[in-house]
């Protein structure tokens, strides 16, 4: 295992190096640079433009720029933003990360869960009406024109029915007097969610362990879980954060809904396929022969082993959505990494754009890594030895 991990790590770093280099030169190859904004105002003398070039180090040769960039990169600095000179790119990204993270984590987990359940069901009912219906509907959403769908959803639920807040991720009227920043709240939300998740996992692990937990232990589990959630909420309330968390949640619903609509089909179809393979396994037949109830055979035998590939897909999609949210974030006025990347590109802010892309790259690499480990955890058959390409 260790040898595997190290081998993999080496690979990761090499890949990252090449990736960043590619991104960097790609950006440099683009026409125009930030100083072109001075062209919009004739009163700005040429001298000023030269000065700016000097400040941003654009007067140096491309390779000098590249090397200094790389040097910084491995010191963990992503350079200084042009459009927000002299603000470090890292700070800007860190400021955006929590929002993007919370939104897409929620959306991905939800759409994954729905996709997983649906896929399970339609694979089990394969060939029946529900199978076709779900597949067709799923594909239609999967291939729906996303920006349009987003607009329609907003128009329908927020504008026409007035059910949910229009856009943005918080309501300024509430927040204008907020004692803390949105990012603090996001941070607390993440940690809170984590606590609840882990808590519930442990509860279900210890109390609902085994195959047929007694009613008593189930009641315990439930009440404990509920208590945990309540506790977390109370803490939030004591901090005076509850209302703000609530506000953010309200604003999250629409984007999450849209993302889920778009994405659930991916998991669903993947789940369906991999489950169609597992249902033909002998142990599924054996399980039925054992006289296990239908849903047990489905969930614990067919689905459980079919889960593996879909989990990897979840991890990867999570990572890629760290920047894939460009459309969502623009449509829902949800300023995150994606939007930053877009505006950076539009304003020729190479360091920021490069930084954002590199950042995603790192995220994805880590995700791949985690995915492999997860695989090993979920499937007892896999044990990692020297060779790395699994």
């Amino acid at each position: 295992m260790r040898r595997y991990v190290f081998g993999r790590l080496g690979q990761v770093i090499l890949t990252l190096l090449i990736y960043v280099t590619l991104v960097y030169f790609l950006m440099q190859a683009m026409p125009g640079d930030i100083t072109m904004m001075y062209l919009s105002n004739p009163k700005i003398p040429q001298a000023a433009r030269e000065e700016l070039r000097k400040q941003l180090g654009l007067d140096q040769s491309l390779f000098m720029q590249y090397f200094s960039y790389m040097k910084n990169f491995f010191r963990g600095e992503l350079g200084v933003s042009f459009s927000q000179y002299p603000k470090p790119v890292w700070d800007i990204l860190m400021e955006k990360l929590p929002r993007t993270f919370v939104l897409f984590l929620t959306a991905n987990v939800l759409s994954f869960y729905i996709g997983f359940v649906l896929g399970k069901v339609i694979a089990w009912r394969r060939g029946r009406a529900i199978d076709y219906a779900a597949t067709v509907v799923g594909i239609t959403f999967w291939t729906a024109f996303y920006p349009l769908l987003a607009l329609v959803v907003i128009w329908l639920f927020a504008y026409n029915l007035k059910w949910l807040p229009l856009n943005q991720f918080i309501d300024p009227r509430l927040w204008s007097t907020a004692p803390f920043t949105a990012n603090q709240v996001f941070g607390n939300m993440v940690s809170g969610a984590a606590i609840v998740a882990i808590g519930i996992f442990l509860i279900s692990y210890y109390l609902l362990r085994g195959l047929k937990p007694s009613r008593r232990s189930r009641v315990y589990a439930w009440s404990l879980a509920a208590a945990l959630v309540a506790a977390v909420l109370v803490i939030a309330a004591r901090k005076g954060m509850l209302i703000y968390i609530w506000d953010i949640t309200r604003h999250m619903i629409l984007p999450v809904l849209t993302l889920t609509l778009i994405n659930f089909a991916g998991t669903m179809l993947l789940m369906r396929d991999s489950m169609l393979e597992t249902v033909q396994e002998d142990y599924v037949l054996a399980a039925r022969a054992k006289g296990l109830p239908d849903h047990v055979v489905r969930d614990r035998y067919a689905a459980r082993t079919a889960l593996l590939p879909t989990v990897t897909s979840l991890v990867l999609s999570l990572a890629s959505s760290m920047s894939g949210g460009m459309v969502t974030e623009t449509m829902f006025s949800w300023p995150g990494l994606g939007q930053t990347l877009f505006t950076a590109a539009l304003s020729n802010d190479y360091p920021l754009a490069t930084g954002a892309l590199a950042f995603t790259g790192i995220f994805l690499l880590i995700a791949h890594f985690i995915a492999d480990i997860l695989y090993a955890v979920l499937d007892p058959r896999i044990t990692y030895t020297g060779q790395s390409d699994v």
Partner: protein
Amino acid sequence: MNELVPTHETGSASLAEPLWKIRWKLIRRGIAQNWEIFKESRIGMLGIILIIAFGIFGAMWPIMINTVWDPMVYDPVVGFDPMTMHPSPPSATHLFGTDPIGRDILAQLMYSTGREFLLGVLSAVITVVIGTAVGTAAAYYGGFIDTFFMRIADIILLFPFIPLLVVIGSMVRLSFLPFAVIMGVLGGFGGITIILKAQALSVSVRPYIDAARIAGGSDFHIIVSHIIPNVLPLSFLYMMFSVTSAILSEATLSFFGVLNIDMSWGMMIHTADVAGYLFDFAKYWWLWAPAGLAITLFCAAFYMVGRGLDEVVNPRLRKR
């Protein structure tokens, strides 16, 4: 897999009729068999029907513009109808109405259909050709070539696709062909190589490959006439999926206005958007619904065909 195109039989070269004839027969039989299996999948058939429908629709464009429609009015790009205020709702003269600058929606829709086909198929073909070539080569030669291309694939997989294209687009507005090519190439060296390589690998270890090698077939010959035919069905499957992704990306990028394309479904929606009509969806439905639906159905069609092929390509998905 080799039940699909039983290539190993083609190894026996000493026969009366020329080899290519036999091969052709076999391929024909292979296709016929696959078609039989494919027909089983309703989803796939639905897709086929949709695609045909779109084909007809697109084919009507040149006919209409050369016969019925006056180019001055119905040209999808510079056409203009002075008769009404624009955007005008559906009417006898404009079945789907006109866009904010007085161009006929139906004409744009038809004109674009052809283009979308071109875009999708072109980029898909590029993807698959590259993917197949690289994949088989990597599988056949292994060693350096293998690792090299696999690393490339890894790296390309790191790129967030749409954002990257938007970034590039926002700096150089890509025009039609370059965009198709970029899509194709990125796709070709990306994930598909890995999949096709795996497939090719499973083939290249089959005994008849060694047989052919011993029989003194050149690497090229072996790859082309023994490995590739077995990889093709899978490639074809991924072709369908890459069509979908190409079209969707095009639409998204057009919507962001970062492509240099004179007309496409995405452009149609973009035009409505920048003119401020993508707002009251009920009132100005004809500005977004036709194009939006076209995009979805078109992509869905190819995706469904892909699903159908999936059942052909990997037997485990088939009904027993």
